[in-house]
């Protein structure tokens, strides 16, 4: 598209030029990003680079179709999300059929849904949600500082993140990013990132093992599972249902019951206080730390 003719400062013309329905890039780049958020990989895998510097789309026709749909629906993000979520592709299982693994090892044809780790914000929200702490209220700002004051002197801002509101409402201090989110690949807030990393590193495990957030959540879960029944099996079932959304397998149930017995014995042997409520908190923590809790199939 030729650049527009300038009348005023040029900002209006620039905006119109960028969002012109026949602009070849804007809607394609946008729907591709949304696809990346939903599926874990863009139709153009290099979300931040289209064209000669980037990779080619795996499904050019699909990209075009989505882009046109997007523009024709009045640039409705909601509609675009709905389109993707209701698609058969989105609803595929992540287990690969034998021949699919052979013929499409990298799953470029989307014959299965890629296993995905929850993003940083979703990990935090999920921990707060299953432990009954998440504050799901809408809107508002948690930024306690006035304009400009948050630019300087952010040394003690970590404590500002200590609240149960959803992650999307947490303030972002560029110089003191919330350490829990930062551990799980929350991108640098000053860098545009269309394609978040998904790293697996030891500091993440430290956070899961030792952070206040996880310990508080596991204590809440233990209290929750403690009172209605004193039958261990019922407690395991309730915990599994609550945290993983399914009943435990027999082998899992047995592993937990074994743990309850041996840890009580070990604790006694080492002269520790084998508090049973703490043991259930430990089981809850194991579930919060489990791969199944973090990875979506």
């Amino acid at each position: 598209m030729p650049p527009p003719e300038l009348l005023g400062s040029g900002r209006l013309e620039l905006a119109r030029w960028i969002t012109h329905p026949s602009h070849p890039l804007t809607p394609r780049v946008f729907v591709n990003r949304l696809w990346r958020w939903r599926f874990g990989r863009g139709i153009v895998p290099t979300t931040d680079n289209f064209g000669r510097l980037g990779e080619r789309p795996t499904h050019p026709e699909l990209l075009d179709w989505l882009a046109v749909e997007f523009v024709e629906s009045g640039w409705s993000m909601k509609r675009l999300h709905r389109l993707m979520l209701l698609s058969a592709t989105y609803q595929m299982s992540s287990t690969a059929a034998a021949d699919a693994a052979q013929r499409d090892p990298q799953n470029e044809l989307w014959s299965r849904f890629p296993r995905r780790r929850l993003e940083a914000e979703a990990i935090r929200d999920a921990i707060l949600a299953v432990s009954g702490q998440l504050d799901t209220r809408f809107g508002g700002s948690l930024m306690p500082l006035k304009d400009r004051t948050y630019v300087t002197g952010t040394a003690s801002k970590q404590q500002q993140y200590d609240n149960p509101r959803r992650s999307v409402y947490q303030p972002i201090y560029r110089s003191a990013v919330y350490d829990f989110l930062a551990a799980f690949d929350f991108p640098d807030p000053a860098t545009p990132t269309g394609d978040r990393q998904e790293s697996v590193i030891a500091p993440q495990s430290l956070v899961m093992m030792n952070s206040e957030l996880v310990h508080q959540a596991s204590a809440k879960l233990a209290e929750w599972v403690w009172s209605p029944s004193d039958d261990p099996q019922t407690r395991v079932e309730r915990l599994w249902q609550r945290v993983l959304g399914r009943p435990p397998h027999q082998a899992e149930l047995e592993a937990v019951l074994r743990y309850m017995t041996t840890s009580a014995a070990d604790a006694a042997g080492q002269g520790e206080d084998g508090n049973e409520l703490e043991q259930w908190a430990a089981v809850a923590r194991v579930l919060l730390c489990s791969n199944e809790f973090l990875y979506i199939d």
Partner: protein
Amino acid sequence: MLQHWITDRPASRREWLFHSGIGFGGLALAALLKQQDLRAEPSPGTAARRRTPHFTPRAKRVIFLFMHGGPSQVDTFDYKPELQRRHGQPYTYARPRIVSAKTGNLMASPFRFHRCGESGIPVSEIFPETGKCIDDICLINSMWGSNSRHGSALLELHTGSDTFIRPSMGSWITYGLGTENEDLPGFITICPTLGHGGANAWSSAFLPARYTGTPIGYSSVKAEEARIGSIQPRLSLPQQRRELDLLREINMMHLNQRGPDDRLESRIEAFELAFRMQSIAPEVQDYTRETAAVHRLYGIDQEPTRNFGIQCLMARRFAEAGVRFVQVTHSYKWDAHGELEKNHRQNALEVDRPIAGLIKDLKQRGMLDDTLVLWGGEFGRTPTTQGDDGRDHNNVGYTMFLAGGGVRGGLRYGATDEFGYFAVEDKVHLHDLHATMLYLLGLDHERLTYRHAGRDFRLTDVKGRVVHGVVA
């Protein structure tokens, strides 16, 4: 060789899709690909292990002593007799185009300088102990950077960019060389400042997250109380071990059902690594295990050297344990816009003995040969006065120093003008410093690249040249 650096990037999404789809056959193929260097990010168990540098390295690790705020060159390591003679006289030459405040006449250093060591280099009286090590130190008197604001200058010093967010030099170096101890982070920053860009100074930006610096405490925390985040277990170790055993069991059942999957396996291992790190890192950090003599050497036995001394001793212990890049920050105290004499006297008092202690200690342990020590702030200060008795920021000519790690000791490299304002001879830009540091570590700054957003990035951007004059 070039291939090696470019391909070690997070193409891992494709790699893991590949792994999860094709199973153990895929893993075997991945092993083959790895031999061809077409590999994904290593999993934590095999973590960022040692990598081959481009050419024979002189240094294996870096300890960076960061003087936040900007120490004055003409009051420390850049003796200017002409400035001393012309005290109070107007400065009639051109000043930098951008200044933050109007500065006045020339101001002589309130400190005496003494010739030190066999090299006879003049060192300010406020650095008597460091002066004794001058024959192991290579002063770069001709440093300059692009920006005179704290935040931007601090970023440029740490990342090579004063405008955009880029990976820290510690991240680049760990990315280039890997780590020598997989139970510890490869890049550690002790009591870093949270101001002036904060985390951006140790962020890996677009490099994979494993290369991000691990902070130990913050500048407002006492060194003896500083800890790596979430490193302290809330349970007894046997208790936690039992819990992790159950976790492993549950995760293995899940893996057997859903796997093979590199990420799921990596995450199982990551908990084991974290458990080891949790006991090993505090052990390495524990400076109280050193003898009283060592504590004296670093000035830990007395104020006001205790805090910085502890930081420096921790740095040596981490370096010794295989950490690639350790930064020690002397917090934001050097910004002497007023009362320079009092300010610099006190700051130098806090750091002088610990710095000298570190250099001597590294030397007596045979570690100075392959440990590169870097000292300096984000800029220097003006030889002209700000207010009655202060100095303003000066990024156009200042001093940093290198020691050990293959540099020439007892050398004053480069020079500022007769007043110590502008670097004029053998100028060394921050890009050149970075290029030289990488060179000493065996890395070619033009070949240490990372593909991001469609192009290859470098620590030195499109600039930088190795300053061979400082290399022994």
